[in-house]
């Protein structure tokens, strides 16, 4: 397991056959030469392919980022990842009320809503149990605390089910939650600022003073939201990302924790998550049918003309999301104590447990964040092309390839690998039919594993 990481990764060592480097250099030169020749032939078309490559690469980069985060923490391939991408995309489809989509109301089904409500209730119960209960232990009896946690968790579950049941009123049903979240964030920020200005200040007093303006701010935000019909799209994105993340967290806490205790090899975890992927993919077909489903055009669907190439505003937005996702992940990992804990667990889980890191909580949050990244990537793909039940497995594999190309376990490698994979795929299908692109990306993977198994940017 974690102690046997080199073995777990199964990366081949660099081959020391003398010709290997030469072949690798030749291949690179050939590829670059081909691209240069192509660019010389038809510059506008090359620009078009580069745009497409970047747009596709943004999705791969997002996938690879989340994938890298999870993989470099627990060192097993969690195939739920693909399911998270599909869940995110289908979640938006489920929640969109666009009349053009037609049969949405046929799809909304009570069992689905109840299942997700139960998952959210479980996640809330666990979160409150691990985060809030220890702090209040001295002020209330355990029985009261238990009951309180249970009540809040069940209430959240019911709330989630209600939100999912009435997707056409998403702004309305979600505005209290957004208001509350805004108020909570405002209070937390005030407290943090007050603490850094004068460290002896009474935290409770500050919180009480800040509560009133924060409540007003929250209510105002909620009010604004409830009156903004255009916000439904973004809210549906947020909801389906959060739900996919909750499922990821629930899977880790409810299943993987027990499995990792006894697993002899990472393959056990891989096969178990394969089972989850199979089950979720089949459930998606049962709920949504196997025919491809379109998502409504988000925005900027009319292409711009830049230098003879056409690019959609949405693709630019996707690239922006990938970069923002990278920046967020970088800040999270390099700047916060949470990030230090994550890196410590990635280096050695046993020792980090010994020095007092609550590994279960940290890893659960890592799974949550990773699944949210995957869901976002799935949503971006869904808006760009169409939804298919099989998209999850393919997206998962693409993210996996991107992280291998960039260098497994390296954050910078993930984003570089994503864009490189996207560009190679798009330039590769210049002379071939578009259906070859999956074969091309796997060919790239096999080349990389044969000649540069450490990837473009190796992990230190």
């Amino acid at each position: 397991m974690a102690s046997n990481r080199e073995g777990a990764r199964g990366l081949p060592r660099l081959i020391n056959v003398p010709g290997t480097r030469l072949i690798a250099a030749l291949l690179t030169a050939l590829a670059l030469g081909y691209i240069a020749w192509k660019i010389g032939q038809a510059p506008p078309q090359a620009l078009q392919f580069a745009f497409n490559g970047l747009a596709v690469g943004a999705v791969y980069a997002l996938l690879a980022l989340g994938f890298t985060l999870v993989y470099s923490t627990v060192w097993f391939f969690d195939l739920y990842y693909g399911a998270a991408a599909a869940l995110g995309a289908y979640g938006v489809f489920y929640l969109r009320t666009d009349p053009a989509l037609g049969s949405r109301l046929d799809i909304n089904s009570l069992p689905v809503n109840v299942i997700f409500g139960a998952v959210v209730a479980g996640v809330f119960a666990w979160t409150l149990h691990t985060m809030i209960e220890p702090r209040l232990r001295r002020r209330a009896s355990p029985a009261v605390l238990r009951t309180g946690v249970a009540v809040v968790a069940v209430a959240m579950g019911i709330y989630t089910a209600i939100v999912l049941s009435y997707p056409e009123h998403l702004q309305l049903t979600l505005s209290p939650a957004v208001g509350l979240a805004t108020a909570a964030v405002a209070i937390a920020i005030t407290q943090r600022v007050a603490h850094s200005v004068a460290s002896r200040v009474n935290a409770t007093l500050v919180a009480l003073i800040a509560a009133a303006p924060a409540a007003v701010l929250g209510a105002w935000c909620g009010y604004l939201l409830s009156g903004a019909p255009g916000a439904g799209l973004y809210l549906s994105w947020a909801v389906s990302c959060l739900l996919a993340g909750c499922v990821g967290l629930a899977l880790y806490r409810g299943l993987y924790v027990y499995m990792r205790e006894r697993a002899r090899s990472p393959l056990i975890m891989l096969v178990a998550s394969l089972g989850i992927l199979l089950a979720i993919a089949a459930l998606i077909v049962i709920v949504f049918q196997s025919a491809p489903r379109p998502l409504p055009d988000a925005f900027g669907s009319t292409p711009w003309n830049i230098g003879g190439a056409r690019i959609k505003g949405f693709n630019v937005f996707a690239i922006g999301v990938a970069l923002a996702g990278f920046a967020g992940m970088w800040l999270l990992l390099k700047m916060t104590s949470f990030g230090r804990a994550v890196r410590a667990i990635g280096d050695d889980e046993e020792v980090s447990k010994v020095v007092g890191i609550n590994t279960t909580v940290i890893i659960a949050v890592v799974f949550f964040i990773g699944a949210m990244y995957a869901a976002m990537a799935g949503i971006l793909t869904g808006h760009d092309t169409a939804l298919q039940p099989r998209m999850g497995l393919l997206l998962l594999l693409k993210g996996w390839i991107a992280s291998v190309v960039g260098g497994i376990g390296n954050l910078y490698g993930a984003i570089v690998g994503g864009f490189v994979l996207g560009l190679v795929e798009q330039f590769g299908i210049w002379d071939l039919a578009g259906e070859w692109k999956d074969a091309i990306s796997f060919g790239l993977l096999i080349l990389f594993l044969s000649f540069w198994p450490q990837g473009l940017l190796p992990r230190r």
Partner: protein
Amino acid sequence: MPVNIEGIREFARLAREPSELVRHARGNIGLWLTLIAVAAAAVFMLMSGTKFAVGAATLFAIWAILAVSLNLVVGYTGLLSVGHVGFFGIGAYTMAVLTSEAPYEQLRTGVIPTFGWPFFAVLPLCIVLAGLAALIVGVVFNRFRDDIFVLVSFGFAIIAYSVFLNLRSVTRGAFGIHEIVRPQIGAWTFDGNVAFLLLALVFLGFVMLISWFITTSSFGRVLTAIREDEQAIEVFGYQATHFKLAVWVISAMMAGLAGGLFASWTRFIDPNSFILLESVLLVSIVILGGLASIWGSLLGAMAFVLLEEGMRFLPFIPTEYTGQARQVVLGILLVLLMLFRPQGLVGRFRL
């Protein structure tokens, strides 16, 4: 550890002395499961009429050949391969292209010549071509282990699917190939489904015999040792890569055989029969039945076929979703197995 010979002797002994059966059955989960599966199969046959049951049994035979062959790689050698469907597809397409006489015109290349060869002349070619492909793929894949091997084998499955879908001048792309011939010996064709079932069962027995021979030989013991500790067996002077390559090629040849049979049985194939999902399902069959156990693979394939056919009788599942419902059950079973029984139902190797 010699593996299956004891099991077979055990079965033979039990068949002679039924009183032993009761004593033996306690704590032998494999026997119980086999009995349950056979009983379920019998009930199913009674409920659904002969024609349906013969079809299901043929499907079982083909999946069983695939599962037994994959078990050589996954169970005995410890390489979790998800690319087996590629070799299956190569076998099936060889059979389809060389035996079909259906005319096919393409816009650019004109009329594609058809061959119309007989089944038994093409079947060895299916096996050889799948083996050759496996040799090429295996040389590249040989140095990967564990997770990375899983990833590249996914890759092989997807590349093979792309080739089936896009190499239109040979495979006719998404249209598929019609009019694949049934086997024929002299004037007698295996036209009837029962006759074909018998043929498939003969091939299944043949494949099981070879697998049994491999796994009980010294070659099989080296494979088991590679699974347990590759470096240790290399210290003893065995080239692990050669052994892995050999078993990979053998397994692929069996899959090619299964592909040839499948093409001839359905008489029509298109790339949708060889998607990645089939491969994933196949792996889950092997793990479900039991790693490093030939009987386990049979049990897994039987459970797989029975699950789908059995789902038809459940009233609350619409008929068009039986395959999906089976997939859900299979996925949940996999998770439960990994939690409580990582060697599969009757397996001898914990993943």
